[in-house]
Structure formats: structure tokens, C-alpha cells
């Protein structure tokens, strides 16, 4: 019975695949013309591309999937958001063709990737930038200027009240009430936490003594909630609460912190986040096509917003057959194109990659080739 059932499904799939391929070949010329902005790789590709990884990019990935599949009617992208770590592990094990990850492959992971991806291992390509907002709930206050040390002290519970002298000093115009501060953080493991603690550990070295981590340090006081929506909701409902979250999820009910960069204060915007990512340096000692970025959280570049999350597409440098290479390249190029970045910005309110970085990233994707 079961075997019969599977057989039937397989038959349906085969017929479906045939039908899709047929469509693909019929429409080559037409889609090739239509997709000039999207898949600039030219001819449409067919096949199924499988990936897994970070859940932070799921909304963007849904948009990319839809955009890519409509430009390439014979192609299909499957992405399961199981977490960055699981994604990197699956790519190293050869279970998927690409991974999405909130952190680039570590050196030892690059070495273990050589087993399935060949001697050149894997490459990390940034494809998604999301600014992290420090948001707070103080009635009548919509913006506060804070330096990293003060933010770190607030989240560590060293500054306990909104009328603290350190907050007042930077915000002489704001009317700050005598109200206890309740820091709210994520209860689940997340890339947002990892990037935010990385920012604090780098920009407020003397105050934030914990290492960066996807789990919030448990010893610190404060409240927590599940997921981005959870912390935003808890903060909105609690007077005096402060939290960090993907900028896209922060509502107008909350005030936003302007971060101190150099001597000025920078409000959170997609452009400011892209500037901070542009100021990042490429991690050295890796293959020329690898674009692992070392973000400078203490940057003083004008207008940069250093609390950002950069998510990477992780690909093998070589794939065994030409069909997979075409598919991967075509998908990667589409994601990095203006259209792909715009779709992600619309769907997930991410910050589009700057033109310079996108060009570099496209060159990296272009370097993917068939294994010799």
C-alpha cells in the first residue's frame, strides 16, 4: 500500500517535472528577454536547488524564491530555515547545495568543507544586511542618543533608571522620567543576539566583558521573550523597557536609539547599515573569492550604523556538474541583483547591498565552476 502510494507520488512528480522542463525549453527566448534585470546570467536554468540555514532570512528567501522561479520557470529553490549552524553543517556534509548563515564559515569549517566541495572548499558571500535597532518604551520620548558604553551598562543592569546622569548628559532636551529600566532580551538562540553582543563587546570593551554569543548571558538581570516579535511585544507592553531587534519589526510605538559613531549620533536607516558594511574589511587568508566580512563595530566612518547583521550565502567553490553550477550561479546572481535586493527589502525591510559590495559579491558567485 505504502509502496504503491510512493510510486504514485513519484509518477506525478516525474510527469510534473517533464511538464516543467517542457515549459522551460519553450520559453527560453521569451524569459531570456524578460529577465534582463533579474537573472542577468542570460538563459534560464532548470533543476532544483536545495539549501538550509538561518531563519533570519526566511522572509527574504521566500521573496527570492518567488522572483527566481518566475524568471526561470524550470527551476525550483527549496530552503528550510533550520538555523545557521545546521545550515553550515549540512553544506559541509554535502547534504545541500547552499547554506544561509548569520556567520561566515570558521577556518576549521572551511577545512572540513574541502571533503565534499573539493580542494578549494566553500565561499561565503554576503547577501542580506539587516540593521539592529535598540528600541525602548518611554512615554513621550521617540529618540535618544546613547554611546555604546551607556547601552552596555543599561543591558547589564548597571544603569537602572531612565533619569540616570549618563543618559541625561547626552540628551539634555529629552524629558526623562523617574522610571526603572527593564532590559528585555531574546530567550531563544539568535543571530540578532550574536551580532548585538558582538557590537557591545567591541564598542564597549570595558563594560561588556562577555564574549559574543547567540545566547544572551544568563547571569545578567532582565526579562526575556521568544523571538523578535516577542521582545518587541513585551517592550511595547512594559513601561521603561528597552530591547534590541531587527529594525523591520520595531513599531512606531517605541523610541529608537541613535548610536554614537565617532563624535556624531547616527539614527538607524538601511543606508547607514549599508555604509557600515561597506566599511568592513574582508577576512584575510582566505580564497580570493571569499567575501567573509570583518565588521568594524568601532568604525568612525561618517553615517555608518555599526549594529548590523550580515547574513551570508555559503556555496561550494566547485560543484561536480555543470547543471548545478549554472543553477547556483543563476540564483546567486539573481539574489545579488538590484531586483533581488529590492525584493528582500520590500519583503523583510532589509538594507540592500551597496553597488560596490554587490559587484564584488557577484564576482564571487561568478567564480563558482565545475570541479576538474
Amino acid at each position, binding site marked *: 500500500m505504502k509502496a504503491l502510494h510512493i510510486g504514485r507520488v513519484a509518477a506525478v512528480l516525474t510527469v510534473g517535472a517533464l511538464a516543467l522542463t517542457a515549459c522551460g525549453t519553450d520559453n527560453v527566448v521569451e524569459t531570456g528577454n524578460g529577465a534582463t534585470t533579474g537573472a542577468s546570467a542570460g538563459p534560464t536554468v532548470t533543476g532544483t536547488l536545495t539549501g538550509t540555514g538561518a531563519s533570519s532570512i526566511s522572509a527574504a528567501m521566500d521573496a527570492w524564491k518567488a522572483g527566481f522561479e518566475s524568471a526561470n520557470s524550470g527551476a525550483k529553490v527549496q530552503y528550510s530555515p*533550520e538555523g545557521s549552524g545546521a545550515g553550515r553543517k549540512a553544506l559541509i556534509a554535502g547534504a545541500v547545495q547552499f547554506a544561509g548563515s548569520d556567520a561566515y564559515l570558521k577556518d576549521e569549517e572551511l577545512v572540513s568543507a574541502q571533503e565534499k566541495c573539493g580542494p578549494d572548499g566553500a565561499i561565503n558571500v554576503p547577501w542580506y544586511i539587516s540593521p539592529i535597532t535598540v528600541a525602548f518604551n518611554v512615554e513621550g520620548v521617540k529618540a535618544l542618543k546613547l554611546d555604546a558604553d551607556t547601552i552596555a551598562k543599561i543591558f547589564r543592569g548597571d544603569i537602572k533608571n531612565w533619569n540616570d546622569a549618563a543618559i541625561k548628559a547626552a540628551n539634555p532636551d529629552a524629558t526623562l522620567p523617574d522610571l526603572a529600566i527593564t532590559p528585555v532580551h531574546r530567550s531563544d538562540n539568535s543571530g540578532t543576539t550574536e551580532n548585538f553582543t558582538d557590537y557591545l563587546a567591541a564598542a564597549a570593551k570595558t563594560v561588556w566583558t562577555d564574549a559574543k554569543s547567540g545566547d544572551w548571558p544568563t547571569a545578567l538581570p532582565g526579562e526575556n521573550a*521568544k523571538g523578535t516579535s516577542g521582545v518587541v511585544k513585551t517592550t511595547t507592553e512594559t513601561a521603561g523597557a528597552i530591547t534590541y531587534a531587527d529594525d523591520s519589526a520595531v513599531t512606531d510605538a517605541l523610541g529608537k536609539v541613535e548610536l554614537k559613531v565617532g563624535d556624531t549620533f547616527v539614527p538607524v536607516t538601511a543606508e547607514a547599515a549599508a555604509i557600515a558594511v561597506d566599511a568592513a574589511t574582508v577576512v584575510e587568508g582566505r580564497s580570493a573569492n571569499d567575501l567573509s566580512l570583518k565588521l568594524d563595530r568601532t568604525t568612525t566612518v561618517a553615517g555608518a550604523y555599526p549594529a548590523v547583521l550580515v547574513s551570508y550565502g555559503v556555496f561550494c567553490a566547485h560543484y561536480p556538474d555543470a547543471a548545478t553550477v549554472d543553477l547556483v550561479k543563476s540564483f546567486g546572481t539573481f539574489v545579488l541583483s538590484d531586483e533581488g535586493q529590492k525584493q528582500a527589502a520590500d519583503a523583510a525591510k532589509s538594507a540592500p547591498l551597496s553597488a560596490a559590495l554587490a559587484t564584488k559579491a557577484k564576482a564571487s558567485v561568478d567564480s563558482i565552476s565545475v570541479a576538474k
Partner: protein
Amino acid sequence: MSTTKLARRAGTGRTGDKVFSGAALGAGALIVAVLFAVALFLVVQALPTFSAPAADITGGEGFFTYIFPIVIGTLIAATIALLIATPIGIAVALFISHYAPRKLARGLGYVVDLLAAIPSVVYGAWGASFLASQLKVPYQWLAENMGWIPLFAGPASSTGKTILTAGIVLAVMVLPIIASLTREIFLQAPMLHQEAALALGATRWEMIRMAVLPFARGGIISAVMLGLGRALGETMAVALVLSSGPLIASLIRSGNQTIAAEIALDFPEAFGLRMHELIAAGLVLFLITLAVNMVARWIINRHKEFSGAN
């Protein structure tokens, strides 16, 4: 002709019997096999945790130090839930079975059963967004006036998302299980005993105490244990309601964590050793539930001879 018919009929009867006994045996064996497979999976997947160096475990001090606080947190939440739900559940069941007019009783029974059908994530959302903010003020009061009791030591949580709130949400979730199971038991209490008690001049409450409750003792314990199973294993509601943290005695500050919620929150991004750790935590929860059920069985068996059933 007639003999063949008879023989055939007898034949089908035997086949049906065989099929049924086979199916029953299969069902019985299946549950044991599934339980065994789950236990085996948990043990195999948890093993790397026990052989890993203590420094690699979350917290850096070995598995026991990691698991102990969340075991206690799990037990605290479940205890609060049962302390609230057991008396209310039994009272609701007694009202339906012995006090309410028949029409009202039926409607009320349906309503209680409906409570059990609500998905736990809905309870979680209700607890996190409504109940927690309602409890802020009572918690503040407790901290100010009863703060000398370690359980209510301040400062009270400013969000209300504490282990006590989680326990109350769990109590609401466990309530229908206890209420509907005990109601069925109370309805089965022998009418003769009850009428005899009333005839001897007992008031209704005395009758219930003498003729209904002793008969139902085993059933009540079973119902409470089933409720406890749900409270121990409840994941989503606790994950949404509780603002977790390290183990603390105070019930009105944010802190504590349960095993099930810890697994739910960290599993999506867990890989490598962390995943094995969480599965090991699951194994511990499995063992706790097993132990609780065995103790319950033992209590029921001990009290069997005193119950009104015989």
C-alpha cells in the same frame, strides 16, 4: 448443505476472534515498541553529552550543573499548576456530578471538555499578552507586603512574566483533564452507598466524603498524574509566557526555566554538542515523567483495598 453453512459460520467466528486478538496484541506491542524506540533514540543521541568534557557543556561546568536548575524549574512550574488545578478540578467535577441541576451539568461538562481542546500556543499567547500584564500589580503588592517570604521576594517583575504566571497558565491547561476524568469517576460511585449514607442521616457533603471520595481516590490520583504529565511536558505555553533566567526561589521575579521550554527555544538553532545536550535534557524529562508515573501506580495499588470499589 446446512453443515457446511454451520462450519463456515463457526469458521468465520474463529477467524474474527483470531484477527481481533492479533490486532489487540499488535496494538499493545506497538505502544511498548514505540516507547522503547523513543527511549533508545534519546539515550543514543544523548550519549555524546556525557562523554564530552565538562568545559564544553553550556555553562562550562558539566551536564549536572546545567540540567539541575531547569529540572527544579520544571518541578516548580508543575507543582504550582497542580496545587491550583487539583482542588479546583475536583470541586468542578463534584459540582457537575453531584450538585448542579442535570441540564446545567451537561452544558458545563461540555465547556470543561472544550477547554482541553484549545491549542497550547493559544494559552501561551493569552498568558503572555493578557494574564502577565494583569498580574503585575498583584505581584508588586506581594513583593511589598509579603516580601519576607523567600517565595515572594522582590523586586517584582515589571512584565509579570514569571514562573508563577507560567504555573497559573499551566493550571488552566491541566484543569480540564483533572475535572473531566474525576467527573467520570464520581459519576461511577455506587449509588447504593450514596443512598445508604443519605438514609443514615448524612448531609450531602458527608455523603460525598464517606461514599464518593474514598471510591474515587485511585481515579483522582490517576487524573492528577495525567495532568502532571501535561504540566511537565508543556512546551509552547511556557516558552511564550516565562521570562526565563537562572534558578531563583522567588516566584514573582523573572527567572527559572523548564526543560521543555529550554528545548523548544534552543533547538531550532542548535547543532553539534548543543543538540545532544538538549536531547539529553529531553531524556531527563522522560525519566522524571516515568518516575512520577511509577510512584503514582504504586500509590494507587496501595490504596486499592481501601477504596469503595470492593
